[in-house]
């Protein structure tokens, strides 16, 4: 069984009367890329901060690398890196000096600085100060800064926030590379489910401070997969036809519709068979539930996902 890197149990946090985290329980195993999804204000950053020990929790327990207690967590956090919200950099310092500061904070050697600058394509920034970097460069430098201490667990809060499409692709590639080449476990957040679906292996959906759903990549794909949507008043007759056609993977929805999850290219054949069997077909066609719709369906709101 793979090692549990993070185990948060019933973590709650209140600001005044407002509960920003409400009994959130998350388990992250080594090698996972865990995506935390939620609209703005759902509690993603707050949860990440509690994990990093930046804010205190009112209730619950946090276990990191199977260690608990103040001392244990302090030791465990030395194996972690974070970039929460905006890239936390010293604007007056160069990329190299920013990394030197973080190396000193972590008590590690400066040997790897050149490699990291190369890895993040920042080797040519020279004496340019971080304040003059583009947002993409700042994001890359922030990640380089977290890597200098050789983390085994990386926490990235909205790493693609504000990046242009090419920057988003680049950031995605960097995260993939970190996981495949360095074996880092990642917890990252986004308010874009579509964006996270291209990176994460597991998902947790936060809404109003509550973790309302956890699912794996396979489960998400399953729940949002492409299917043939059939609308008919003769559901029972239609089911018989589908059985005759040898279709077994379908689902009856609300008594007037059937979602068929196989033979997606045989819409015409299925339609012809239904018509021959005197089934009145109101509508038939392939469709895919958009990730955004899936998210809205879960959160039950008009929030942007």
């Amino acid at each position, binding site marked *: 069984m793979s090692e549990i890197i993070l185990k948060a149990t019933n973590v709650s946090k209140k600001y005044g009367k407002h509960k920003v985290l409400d009994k959130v329980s998350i388990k992250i195993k080594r090698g996972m890329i865990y995506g935390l999804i939620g609209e703005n204000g759902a509690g993603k950053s707050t949860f990440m*901060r509690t994990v*990093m*020990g*930046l*804010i*205190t929790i009112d209730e619950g327990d946090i276990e990191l690398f199977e260690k608990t207690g103040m001392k244990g*967590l*302090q*030791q*465990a*956090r*030395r194996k*972690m*890196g*974070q970039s*929460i*919200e*905006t890239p*936390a*950099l*010293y*604007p*007056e*310092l160069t990329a190299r*000096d920013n990394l*030197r*500061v*973080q190396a*000193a*904070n*972590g*008590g590690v050697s400066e040997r790897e600085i050149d490699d990291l600058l190369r890895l993040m394509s920042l080797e040519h920034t020279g004496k340019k100060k971080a304040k003059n970097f583009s947002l993409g460069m700042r994001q890359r430098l922030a990640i380089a*800064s977290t890597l200098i*201490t050789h983390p085994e667990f990386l926490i990235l809060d909205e790493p693609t926030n504000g990046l242009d499409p090419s920057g988003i692709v680049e950031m995605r590639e960097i995260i993939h590379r970190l996981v495949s080449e360095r074996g880092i476990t990642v917890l990252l957040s986004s308010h874009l489910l579509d964006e996270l679906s291209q990176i994460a292996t597991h998902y947790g959906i936060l809404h109003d401070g509550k973790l309302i759903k956890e699912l794996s990549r396979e489960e998400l794909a399953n729940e949002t997969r492409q299917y043939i949507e059939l609308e008919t008043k003769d559901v029972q007759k239609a089911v018989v036809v589908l059985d005759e056609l040898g279709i077994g993977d379908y689902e009856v929805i609300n008594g007037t519709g059937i979602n068929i999850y196989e033979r997606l290219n045989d819409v015409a054949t299925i339609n012809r068979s239904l018509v021959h069997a005197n089934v009145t077909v109101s509508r038939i066609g392939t469709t895919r539930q958009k990730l955004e719709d899936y998210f809205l369906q879960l959160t039950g709101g008009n929030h942007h996902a």
Partner: protein
Amino acid sequence: MLNLLTAERIKLIRSKKLLIVLSILSILPIIQAVNSKMMVGYGTELIQAKDTVINGATGILMMEKNGLTVLLTMCAFIGFFIGEEFQNGTIRNALSLGRSRIHYYLSKLLMVSLLAFVGVVVLTALGMICFSIVLGFGEVSEINNYGWYALKTFMTLYLLILANVSIYVMISFITKNSAISLVWSFLYTIGTGFGAGIFLETEHFKHVTFWFTESFLFYSDFASPIDVAKYSDMILVSFITIVLSSIIGILVFKRADIK
């Protein structure tokens, strides 16, 4: 702790703020020495009790002469040095690595104390040199053992400054914002520097005036044997201020949520 101090050193050495502070404290004695020379040239007689520094020997009192300037310079520096860590979010980089908040607080306090020390050494040394060049080294009246007097005076003045530095550090960690920290530090400096004297007007509370280190700094004549005799009181008040402000600052910072 040593790792944090190394990080602070890198930040400070590369920072323009350090250059600005040291420039102010370097230029000040030169301008004042030239100004005093011109005053003497125009026939004004320099009086130690009023002008504080009148020759190279009294140059040891540069911190007394420039008390308010040194304090305001340090309050601005500390406000930015600590406040920006919160505002840029860089404080997260150290704390999220499991670094102790007490160590983080103390490393900041230690760094600004060191900078204050370097700053006042530069100010005093340049003051003594410049005043010696333009007005001669001279002497401090009624002082026999100048070396011992100079050492005692310098350390006492530095401690009085350090007590305020410690208060500014506490304010910066409590407010977590450069601008707000600047405003409160300024109000504290002006309030305790010039407001504490109000207690002197009352019969029952006049002793309260000297619970504040700035009262000593602004209202004492460090060349007068009567005030030199109060050095022990000054050192005691400074130590109590440093310890109390550090305890309060650390306690508040330990409970603070870092955004």
